[in-house]
């Protein structure tokens, strides 16, 4: 399933993790995956799919009922204390102390990890500068905007130069600008610092933009995994959308399109007809001439490469946006 070329030992290795909660709730139903060092691995799925529970197991906050896991080669169950030293953990909620200043938050985090003196202070100033928080460093975190609090939160997770960073839905609730800033910073972390990142998200765009590898999580299982490109290539063909110039499609348009070789599953929706095609670009002339021949006026024809949303739909039977609405 993972399809790894085993070049280096994985930064994260999860094998058959099962987690049950009281009341016969199975949160994780056999999660297995590996993350190559220095890459970003995205767990994609709606709330309640099991992403956060997976992170809790890997960050030693929760013990699985079955399965094993290792982070940076250290067994999570046998030596949790050693795991805690090499990981940085940024949770779903912004876990900064609102009654402490930005600098004090970083100071405590560093001290708890045994850092001190000039080395710690230099590291704090470096992180403050990196996340554009230097000017706000003396202010109580309660006065920060959501985006600033999240940046401080991530900076705290990095204070001790962890080898593996866990980011549990880091951009949820952030405005587009703050999200874009954080994306840029996350990318920089792997490129410059060689950090391995496990990212959970329910934003397809986020997984697509950031992750080298993506696993789609649904009902406590990984239903598909691979690079975003591989996942999308796994879907047969492109999506073609025909917009009619006038009138409504009343079955005839779909019937005409269904007769064109290499096109399947046309679906009519008002003036719009959607279908899948083997090769989007070469199908366009055929579609146009077939519809023209049938006397059907066309306003536009668009072809799109499949998105991760299509991948999600294919593997879980529902669109991520819908799944999100149901659980939200």
């Amino acid at each position, binding site marked *: 399933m993972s399809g790894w070329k085993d070049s280096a030992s994985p930064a994260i290795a999860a094998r058959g993790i099962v987690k049950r*909660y*009281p009341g016969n709730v199975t949160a994780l139903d056999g999660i297995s995956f590996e993350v190559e060092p220095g890459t970003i691995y995205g767990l994609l799925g709606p709330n309640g799919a099991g992403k956060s529970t997976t992170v*809790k197991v890997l*960050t*030693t*906050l*929760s*013990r699985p009922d079955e399965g094993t896991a290792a982070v940076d080669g250290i067994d999570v169950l046998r030596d949790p*204390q050693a795991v*805690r*030293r090499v*990981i940085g*953990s940024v*949770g*779903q*909620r*912004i*876990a*900064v*102390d*609102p*009654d*402490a200043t930005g600098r*004090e938050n970083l100071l*405590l*985090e560093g*001290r*708890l*990890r*045994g850092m001190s003196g000039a080395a710690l202070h230099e590291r704090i100033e470096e992180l403050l500068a990196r996340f554009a928080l230097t000017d706000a460093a003396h202010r*109580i975190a309660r006065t920060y905007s959501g985006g600033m609090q999240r940046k401080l939160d991530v900076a*705290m997770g990095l204070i001790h130069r962890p080898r593996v960073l866990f980011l549990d839905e880091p951009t949820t609730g952030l405005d587009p600008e703050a999200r874009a800033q954080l994306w840029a910073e996350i990318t920089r972390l792997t490129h410059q610092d060689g950090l391995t990142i496990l990212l959970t998200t329910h934003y397809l765009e986020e997984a697509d933009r950031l992750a080298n590898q993506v696993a789609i999580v649904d009902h406590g299982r990984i239903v598909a995994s691979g690079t975003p490109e591989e996942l999308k290539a796994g879907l047969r063909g492109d999506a073609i959308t025909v917009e009619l110039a006038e009138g409504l499609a009343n079955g005839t348009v779909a019937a005409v399109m269904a007769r064109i070789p290499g096109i399947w599953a046309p679906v009519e929706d008002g003036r719009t007809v959607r279908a899948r095609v083997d090769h989007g670009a070469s199908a366009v002339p055929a579609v146009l001439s077939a519809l023209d021949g049938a006397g059907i006026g066309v306003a536009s024809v668009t072809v799109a490469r499949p998105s991760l949303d299509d991948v999600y739909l294919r593997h879980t039977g529902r669109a991520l946006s819908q799944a999100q609405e149901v659980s939200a």
Partner: protein
Amino acid sequence: MTAIAQSLYMTQRHTRALLRQPWFVAITLVQPMVWLFLFGNLFRSVTDIPGFTTSASYLDYLVPGVVAMTAFFGGSWSGMGLIDDIERGILDRFLASPTHRSSLIVGRLAQDAVSLVIQAAVIGGIAWLLGAKFESGPIGYAVLVAGAMLLGATIGALSNALALVLRQRESVIGANQFLVLPLTFMSAAFMPLALVPDWIASFATFNPLNWAVEAGREALMAAPDWSYVALRMIGLAGVALLAGLVATRAFRTYQRSA
């Protein structure tokens, strides 16, 4: 070694947060004064009851009760701060770091102890101005505060344990209401045990709040019976240790349901 350093950092965190809430500081200072005035006036005439045997004034009699009650109140709210940390995800951040579990509790208890020292100083100062004698002087008063600290740590650790297991403000508040007043009044805090019903007196024998009151009151006498004081202090240290273990164990329950 690390656990001690981490406890100090945590104490610093909580104390700093407390000092940044001036209203809260004011309330913690005013409240014990209110107890002192309220109970001092409410129960003033108990000294007239036949069988009230104490050489000192009722004010002298009352101060250990008010200090113990203040410590008990302070400790009983300790878990509320932990619930804030749980809800914000701050506790999970600490638990995913190499921070010792014990320092997460000790830091909170130490902050309560710092508050108690300040509160006890205010109580003692005002009582002294009002005419309390404190015959054995500062040493006796220090023993009183030490006993109250152990009492506060005991109830504080249990309050934190409750917060970890139940994770609800309502539960901590409920437990407070259920425990604080009964344990305060089923002791010699305001009334000598010779003057209360037998069942209350027997209950008080096992009530750590009563041990703190009795130890402190004896220590303030002109010629304290130190073995009487030591026995109660050992008892208080014992329950504090036990409560600390319960609180540290409560992290397992918290993580099992995580």
